[in-house]
């Protein structure tokens, strides 16, 4: 992984503010990328729910959106701190390798799809397929999560403080889904297990670091039942037969 060019967040300079409005996304992103790479904070007003903001960030600076954003905000980033004062569309932080995304409202479908590292924190609810095909990192949702949360997650953690509806943890690999509220229905091959104390402590520490109030929670940890892992008979001898 590329080392971010600047690794320290800079507090020496006043934050820069730009207006997104209907300016070309490419131009806006160039300004955001440059600032974040150099470690500055940049405020973006009038994001107007447009798609593809803050894609491909590196560095340790911050970007703050004063309003809602569209699809793939923070997608494919390898650093940076993103905060959205509003809701976000599909694929928030998809394919992220490092960095931090905070959505102060709700997030649409496929939050953190296939992310490989970093943290996504949704203060409201998250839509369906939250953490689908996740490969690493953490997704924290303070509200509820939609159907197929964690579908085929390979690694990493999805932590839901509210309820999970249909098909949570379907077809998991080594990813895990944590639910503090109710689980309406488990997905195929999903198994609830009592979490180890050490893992709970890790989760609580992560929540504390995100400023989530500590309280006693009834954690359900969902892991793979592993029945689908060997779906096709994998004994080579059987394959030779045919």
């Amino acid at each position, binding site marked *: *992984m*590329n080392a971010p060019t600047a690794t320290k967040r800079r507090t020496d300079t006043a934050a820069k503010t730009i207006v997104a409005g209907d300016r070309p*996304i*490419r131009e806006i*992103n160039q300004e955001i990328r440059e600032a974040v790479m150099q470690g500055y904070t940049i405020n973006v007003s009038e994001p107007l729910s447009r*798609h*593809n903001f803050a*894609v*491909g960030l*590196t560095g340790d600076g911050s970007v703050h959106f004063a309003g809602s954003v*569209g*699809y*793939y905000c923070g*997608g*494919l*980033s*390898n650093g940076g701190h993103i905060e959205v004062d509003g809701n976000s569309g*599909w*694929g928030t932080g*998809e*394919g*992220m*390798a490092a960095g931090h995304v905070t959505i102060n409202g709700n997030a649409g*479908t*496929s939050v953190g*799809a*296939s992310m*490989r590292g970093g943290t996504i924190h949704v203060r409201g609810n998250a839509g369906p*397929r939250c953490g*689908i*095909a996740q*490969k*690493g990192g953490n997704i924290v949702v303070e509200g509820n999560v939609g159907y197929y949360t964690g*579908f*085929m997650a*390979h*690694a990493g953690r999805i932590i839901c403080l509210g309820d999970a509806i249909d098909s949570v943890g379907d077809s998991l*690999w*080594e990813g895990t889904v944590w639910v503090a509220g109710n689980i309406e229905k488990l997905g195929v091959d999903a198994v609830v297990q009592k979490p180890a104390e050490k893992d709970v402590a890790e989760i609580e520490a992560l929540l504390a670091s995100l400023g989530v109030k500590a309280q006693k929670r009834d954690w359900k940890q969902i892991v793979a039942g592993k029945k*689908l*892992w*060997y*779906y*096709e*008979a*994998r004994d*080579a001898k*059987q*394959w*030779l*037969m*045919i």
Partner: protein
Amino acid sequence: MADDMKTANHPQADEGLIGFQDGAIEGRPAGVPSSYATGGSPRWTPEVIADIHAKSQLGRYQMRGFNAFNRHLPSFDELVIEPATMTRLPLEGYREQCETKVVLGDGLGKVEQPIELDIPIYVAAMSFGALSANAKAALARGARKAGTMTCTGEGGMLEEERAENRTLVYQLTPSRYMLDLDHIRQADGIEIAVGQGAKPGTGGLLLGMKVSERVARMRNLPMGVDQRATCRHPDFLGADDMAVKIEELREATNYRVPIFVKMGATRPYYDVAVAAKTGADVVVVDGLEGGTGASPAFLLDNTGVPTMAAIPAARRALDDTGMSGKVKLVIAGGIRSGIDVAKAMALGADAVMIGTGMLMALGCNSPRYLADYKALGTEPGACHHCHTGRCPVGITTQDPELVKRLHVDAAAERVYRYLTAMTMEATMLAKACGKSSLANLEPEDLRALTLEASAFTGVPLIGADRPFTW
């Protein structure tokens, strides 16, 4: 009447004589030889019977690599090239030049570094996992020497392949293995895979025997599991979303590299029209004959549109949407030779992509290590056992001992020579047709030998000299 005949006092012949019982076939007491002794039911063929036997023992469908069997498909062999004679002028085969270069990604004016290939033939997406690291390295080196490129396939970016290549397309499949900023910025093109011709509508598949430690690490998988990928992408569904996704990829790569969309041919006219409208630079259409490393066998034979029929439909889609020239069309599925390349280009392809043929150039099905083919229940020339991970020649395996059998230098040279030979075949045909560039090949250079080929392609049927249409 019969009774009348009896009463007419003709003597009844002895039963033994009527029944050929003199010298009768042993085991057939009636002595009547069966006219069905060799079977011959077109419905219950030996393959169908064997398939039922296999399924009834295994309790599931069969799995295999390779591509469609068991079916007569009109093929490129049923088209012929019609060179120049009196109405057109041929070019000198050995002296005059025929341009072979192709540029992918220059049409929309969005890409800073379009891909320039010396020849319009490149190595198809075949994953590390399906293929060994040696096979990937040899393909990359051979392609580079021939001035062309390879594509990573589903399994992430293999260091050896990146190092050996001049031009490498990174495939973004629904599983998104290893896909992050760092890796896509090392790519020279990005291909969004929405399907493949061998098994359209289903995802990638890699059986546990091939999920070695390295494969597992690159894919974030537990070692030895059967990897079945999803068929849908995790963060977009329809074409509208895909258009946004393509913009995201352009943003992440700074508008540097072209974006490809690869699909299996199912409704090629409409699918290509929609893909072209999503803003992709290149549309790749893979026909029914397309190869694979592993698939449920019945999908290979029963799903999709044959390559030959998909090409004219795809070209029409680009013409009708005004995207010809802006969006390039790459065709794959069953391309074997420069002759097939010329025919595909005459039908409307801007370039072609080859999988199975490349494996053969590496040494697939070559007559060595006979005992190992035998252990697989096959022999050189008939092997299609890539899914087992026991490839006798080290191509589609992760077994370190088998992998060693593929000599990278030698295999790379064979890949290079195969690409060169195909280019020579295609240019010779083009020059015979009077074309100074492969890109100038056109449907008028073709005629169909069979009704099916004519109906599939709209190319005039020889004799009738008009297309067979309704």
